[in-house]
C-alpha cells in the first residue's frame, strides 16, 4: 500500500514538473524542489531528470525496485533455494521478469535514465545468475550423490533402476516439452546394452533445465555449460575407473607383459562398450534434457563432458595399434578392431554434432590403424615364415613345427574371416559410409584375403622345400614333403581356408602330394624293383641263371633289409595316410616279387630249397602282399 502511494506521489510530482516546466532545466528545478521535501523521493526523482517518457521510465524504475526486493531476498538466502519448490519458482519468476524487462527496455538504452536502470538491472541479473550457477552446481552434486546408479555385479554393469526399455526417444522430447512429467524415458535399445541410465533424478533434471534455460537466455550460457560439464566429466571419469580402466601411456602399454595386456584389453572392451552404448548416450540424453531448446549449448557441453574419457579410451586402442606385431597378438588385436568396428555406429550417433565431430574422426583414424596393425601382423608372419631357418631336420621326415603352427594359426585366424576380409580390402569404407559391417558380401571382398592366404601358403611351402633339402636321402625328403603337404591339405579342408583357397588349390596340392609319393617310390623302392627284374638273356642258361638268381635274391634281400632298417625310424604322421602308402608300396612291389618267386621255383636246385633263400622279411612281405595290413613297409607308427 505504502509503495503504491509512493509511486503515485512520484507520478504526480513528475506530472507537475512536466506541465509547469517549459524547459528541461525548469522541470529539473521543480523536481529538485520536490525532492527536498522528502529524502525518499530524492533518489527516485533525480534519476528521472531529463526523461522523455517519465511514466514509462517510472514504471521501469518501479518494476525494477520490486524485482530487486524479490530477487535479492533469494540471492542473499543462506539455504539452498531449491530446497523449497515455492521458493525456487518464485525466484525463477523474478528472473524471468527481470529478463523480460531488460529485453523490453534494451532498445531504449540510448536514453540516459533507461540506461541507468538497465545498468542496475544488469547488476541484479548478474547476482541472480551467480546464485543460479551455485544452485545449479549443488543440484548436480546432490543429484549425483543421491543417485549412485551404477552397480557392478561380477564386473558386469547393471543399472538397478530408473530405466525402462519400453519407452522411446519420442516420448523423451515430449516429456521435456511438458516439463513437469517425472517419467524417465529411454533411448533406442541396443543389443545387450539396451539400458540408458539416468544419473540424476528426473526432478533434478527438470530443475537443472529450468536454471539452464534462464542462464542461457541471460547470456550466461558459458558459465552454465562449464558448471555442467565439469560435474559430469568427473562422473564419467569415475565410471570408467570403476570399470577397471587405468590411464596408461603408450609406453606403459608397450612395456606391459603380454598376459597383463590381454587382461587390460578384456577390461577395455567391456569399458568401451559400456561407455559408447550406455554412458555416452545417457550423457547425451541428460545433456539434451538439461539444455533442451539450446542445441548449441547442449552440443558444446556434451563434448566437454565426453572428450576426456573418449580420448582416454581411444588412446588405449591407439597404443595397441602401434604395439608389437608379434603374430600371437593377432587374436586380441582382432578383438579390439572388431570392438571399434562394431561401435562405429555408436560413435557416429553419439558424436554427430559439430563439436564432437573430431572425436568421431579420431575413432575412424584409430580403427583404420588397427586394421593396419592386423595387416602388419600378417606381414610379420610372412617374414617369420620366409626367414625361418632350416636348422636341423625333423627326425624321420615328420611334421615340422612351423607347418603345425602356421596351419593352426591360420585356421584360428579364419574364424574371424569376416573381419579379416574387411581388413584386407584395401580401403576401408570412407568416413561417412554408414554401414561398417557391410562387407558381409563375400564375393566382393574375399579375394584379397584369399590372395593373402594363398601367399602365406606359398611362403610356407617354399620354406618347407628349403627345409626338405636338409635330408640327404631323397626318399626321406619326399616323405617330409608328403607329411607336411598332407597335413596342410587336411587343415585347409577342415576350416574356412577351404573356401578361401578354393577347390583348385586343394586339387593342385593333392596332386603335389601324390607326386611326392611317386618320388618316394622311385627313390627308395625302384632300386629294389630293379633287382627283381629278370632279363631274358639270363634265361638261356640254367646254370648261369641259377647262380644269377641266387645272387639277385641275395642282393634283393640285403637292399630290402637295408631299406627296412633305414625307414624304420621314418615317420608317417597319420594313420590313414600310412595305410595308403603301404598299399601303394605293396602294389608297386608285389607283382614283380611274385613273378620273381615264380621264376625261382622253376629253377630246380633253388625251387626245392626256396624257403632257405627267402629271408624272414620276404616271407613277411609275401604274406603282406596278399594281406597288406599284416605287415608294413618299415614305416614306424608315430
Amino acid at each position, binding site marked *: 500500500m505504502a509503495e503504491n502511494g509512493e509511486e503515485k506521489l512520484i507520478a504526480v510530482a513528475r506530472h507537475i514538473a512536466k506541465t509547469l516546466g517549459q524547459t528541461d532545466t525548469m522541470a529539473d528545478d521543480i523536481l529538485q524542489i520536490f525532492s527536498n521535501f522528502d529524502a525518499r523521493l530524492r533518489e527516485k526523482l533525480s534519476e528521472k531528470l531529463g526523461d522523455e517518457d517519465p511514466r514509462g521510465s517510472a514504471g521501469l524504475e518501479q518494476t525494477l525496485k520490486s524485482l530487486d526486493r524479490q530477487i535479492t531476498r533469494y540471492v542473499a538466502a543462506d539455504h539452498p533455494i531449491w530446497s523449497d519448490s515455492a521458493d525456487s519458482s518464485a525466484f525463477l519468476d523474478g528472473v524471468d521478469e527481470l529478463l523480460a524487462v531488460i529485453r523490453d527496455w*534494451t532498445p531504449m*538504452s540510448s536514453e540516459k535514465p533507461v*540506461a541507468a536502470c*538497465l*545498468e*542496475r538491472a*544488469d*547488476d*541484479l*541479473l*548478474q*547476482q541472480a*545468475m*551467480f546464485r543460479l550457477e*551455485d544452485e545449479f552446481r549443488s543440484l548436480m552434486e546432490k543429484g549425483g550423490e543421491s543417485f549412485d546408479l551404477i552397480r557392478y555385479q561380477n564386473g558386469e554393469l547393471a543399472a538397478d533402476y530408473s530405466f525402462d526399455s519400453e519407452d522411446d526417444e519420442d516420448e523423451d522430447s515430449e516429456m521435456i516439452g511438458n516439463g513437469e512429467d517425472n517419467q524417465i524415458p529411454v533411448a533406442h535399445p541396443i543389443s545387450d546394452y539396451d539400458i540408458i541410465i539416468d544419473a540424476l533424478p528426473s526432478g533434478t533434471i527438470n530443475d537443472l533445465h529450468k536454471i539452464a534455460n534462464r542462464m542461457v537466455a541471460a*547470456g*550466461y550460457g*558459458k558459465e552454465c555449460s*562449464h558448471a555442467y560439464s*565439469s*560435474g559430469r566429466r*568427473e562422473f564419467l571419469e569415475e565410471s570408467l575407473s570403476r570399470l577397471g580402466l587405468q*590411464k*596408461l*601411456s*603408450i*609406453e*606403459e602399454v*608397450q612395456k606391459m607383459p603380454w598376459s597383463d595386456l590381454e587382461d587390460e584389453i578384456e577390461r577395455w572392451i567391456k569399458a568401451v562398450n559400456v561407455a559408447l552404448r550406455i554412458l555416452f548416450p545417457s550423457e547425451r540424453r541428460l545433456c539434451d534434457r538439461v539444455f533442451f531448446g539450446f542445441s548449441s549449448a547442449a552440443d558444446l557441453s556434451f563434448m566437454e563432458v565426453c*572428450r*576426456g*574419457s573418449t*580420448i*582416454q579410451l581411444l*588412446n588405449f586402442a*591407439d597404443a595397441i*595399434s*602401434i604395439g*608389437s*606385431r*608379434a603374430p600371437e597378438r593377432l587374436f586380441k588385436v582382432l578383438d579390439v578392431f572388431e570392438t571399434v568396428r562394431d561401435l562405429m555406429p555408436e560413435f557416429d550417433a553419439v558424436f554427430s554434432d559439430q563439436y564432437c565431430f573430431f572425436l568421431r574422426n579420431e575413432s575412424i583414424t584409430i580403427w583404420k*590403424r588397427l586394421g*593396419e*596393425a592386423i595387416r*602388419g601382423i600378417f*606381414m*610379420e608372419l610372412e*617374414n*617369420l615364415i620366409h*626367414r*625361418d*631357418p632350416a*636348422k636341423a631336420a625333423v627326425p624321420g621326415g615328420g611334421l615340422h*613345427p*612351423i607347418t*603345425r*603352427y602356421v596351419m*593352426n*594359426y591360420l585356421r*584360428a585366424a579364419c574364424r574371424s574371416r569376416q573381419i579379416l576380409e574387411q581388413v584386407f580390402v584395401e580401403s576401408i569404407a570412407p568416413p561417412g559410409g554408414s554401414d561398417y559391417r557391410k562387407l558381409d558380401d563375400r564375393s566382393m571382398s574375399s579375394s584379397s584375403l584369399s590372395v593373402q592366404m594363398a601367399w602365406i601358403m606359398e611362403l610356407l611351402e617354399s620354406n618347407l622345400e628349403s627345409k626338405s633339402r636338409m635330408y640327404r636321402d631323397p626318399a626321406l625328403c619326399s616323405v617330409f614333403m608328403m607329411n607336411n603337404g598332407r597335413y596342410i591339405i587336411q587343415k585347409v579342408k577342415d576350416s574356412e581356408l577351404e573356401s578361401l583357397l578354393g577347390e583348385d588349390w586343394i586339387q593342385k596340392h593333392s596332386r603335389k602330394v601324390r607326386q611326392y609319393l611317386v618320388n618316394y617310390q622311385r627313390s627308395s623302392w625302384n632300386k629294389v624293383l630293379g633287382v627283381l627284374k629278370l632279363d631274358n638273356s639270363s634265361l638261356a642258361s640254367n646254370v648261369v641263371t641259377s647262380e644269377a638268381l641266387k645272387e639277385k635274391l641275395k642282393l634283393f634281400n640285403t637292399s630290402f633289409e637295408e631299406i627296412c632298417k633305414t625307414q624304420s625310424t621314418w615317420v608317417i604322421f597319420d594313420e590313414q595316410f600310412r595305410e595308403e602308402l603301404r598299399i601303394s608300396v605293396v602294389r608297386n612291389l608285389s607283382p614283380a616279387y611274385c613273378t620273381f618267386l615264380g621264376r625261382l621255383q622253376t629253377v630246380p636246385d633253388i625251387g626245392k630249397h626256396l624257403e632257405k633263400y627267402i629271408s624272414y622279411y620276404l616271407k613277411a612281405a609275401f604274406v603282406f602282399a596278399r594281406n597288406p595290413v599284416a605287415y608294413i613297409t618299415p614305416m614306424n607308427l608315430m
Partner: protein
Amino acid sequence: MPSTDYQGVSASFSNFGRSILSIRRDQVHSMENTHEATRQEFELETFQRQVADRFNGLLPVGSDELLSLSWVRKLLDVFLCCQEEFRVIMFNNKEYMNRTPMDRLMSEFSERSVKALDVCNAIRDGIEQIRQWKKQLEIVLCALDNQRSLGEGQFRRAKKALIDLEIGMLDEKESNASLAHRNRSFGRNNVQKDHKSLGHFRSLSWSVSRAWSAARQLQAIGNNLAAPRGNEIIATNGLAVAVFTMSSVLLFVMWALVAAIPCQDRGLQTHFYIPRQFTWAAPILSLHERILEESKKRDRRNACGLLKEIHQIEKCARRMNELADSIQFPLTEEKEGDVRQRVQELVEVFKAVKDGLDPLERQLFCVLVFGPWYISFMLQSRLLSVVSIFGFWLLTEY
C-alpha cells in the same frame, strides 16, 4: 640444381657432420675406386643440410616471437618435414635395418619415438587446458566487451571468470599447492569462492596417469643419446648419423613443446650433448639456450608454460584484475577508457589463442598419426632379427 649444390658442399668439408660421412666414403672409395657419390650419400648429406637449414630458419625471431603459438607451429612443421625426410631415407635403405648396429640404433630410436608420442599426448591435454582458460577469457570479454555500459554486475562477472582463470593457471603450476597459497593470491577478493571453484579446475589429464612426468620422459628420451662412433658410421653406411640427427631433433622438439605448453610435471633439465661439428647443432643449441634463458626470467620462472600467449593471458588477466579492484562506481570516463584498453588487450590475446590452438592441435595429431610409422617399422625389423621363434610358440593344437 641439387647435383651442383651437392658438389659445392662436399668439396668444402667444412663441418664434422659431413666429414663423418666422408669417413665411410673414403673407405668405400678406396675399395671401389670410384669418385662418384652414390645416391644414398647424397641423400644423407642433403638430410644434414636440410635439418640445419630448417632450424636456422627458426632462429631469427625476436624474444617476443620465440615460443609464441605461431613459432611453435613452425617448429612442429620443421619436425614433420625432418621426420618425413628421415622416413624416406630409412625406407630407401631397408636392407640395412636388420644388420648390426643399425638394428640396435633403430630399436633405440623406436623406443624414443614411443616416449615422444606420450609427450605429444600430454601436450594435447595441455592444449585443452589452455582452451579451458580461453573459455574464461571469453566470459570476461562477454561481460566487458560490447556492453552498453560497464556496470558493477559486469565487473563482478568478469572478476569471477578472472579468478577462476587464475586458479586454473595456478592449479596447473603447482597441482599440489596448498589452499593457503591460493588464498594469499586471491583472498582479498573472493575467499569463499575459492574452495568451491577448486574442484572444477582439477587439471585435465587424460592421457597419462598421475605419476607420469614430462621431465622424466624427456630425460628418458635423452638417455644414452650419443653421436655415433666412426666404426658405427662405417658399418651402417652412414645411416647412423641420420638416426642420431633425427633422435636429437626429436628430443629437442619434445623438450621445446614441454617448455612451451602446460603438462604434467614439466622440467627442462634435460641435457643436450650434441657435438658442435654437426651443422644443425648450432641452431638447435642456440634455440635451446634461448628457451632456457626465457625459463629463468623472474616472471617466467614459475610459469605453467613458456608459451608467449600464456604469459600474455597471465599478464592481461592480472592487469584487468588490478584494474577491477581499483574501480569505484559510478565509473569515471578515465577509468572506463582504461577498461576499454585492457579489454582490447584481452581481445587480442583471445584471438591469438583462438586462432592458434586448433592448427597446433592438428599438427600434433599429425605427429601422432605419422609417428607410429617408425614404430611399426621398427617393431617389424626388430622381430625379424629374432632367429626363429617358432619353437616357442605354443599354439599347436593337433
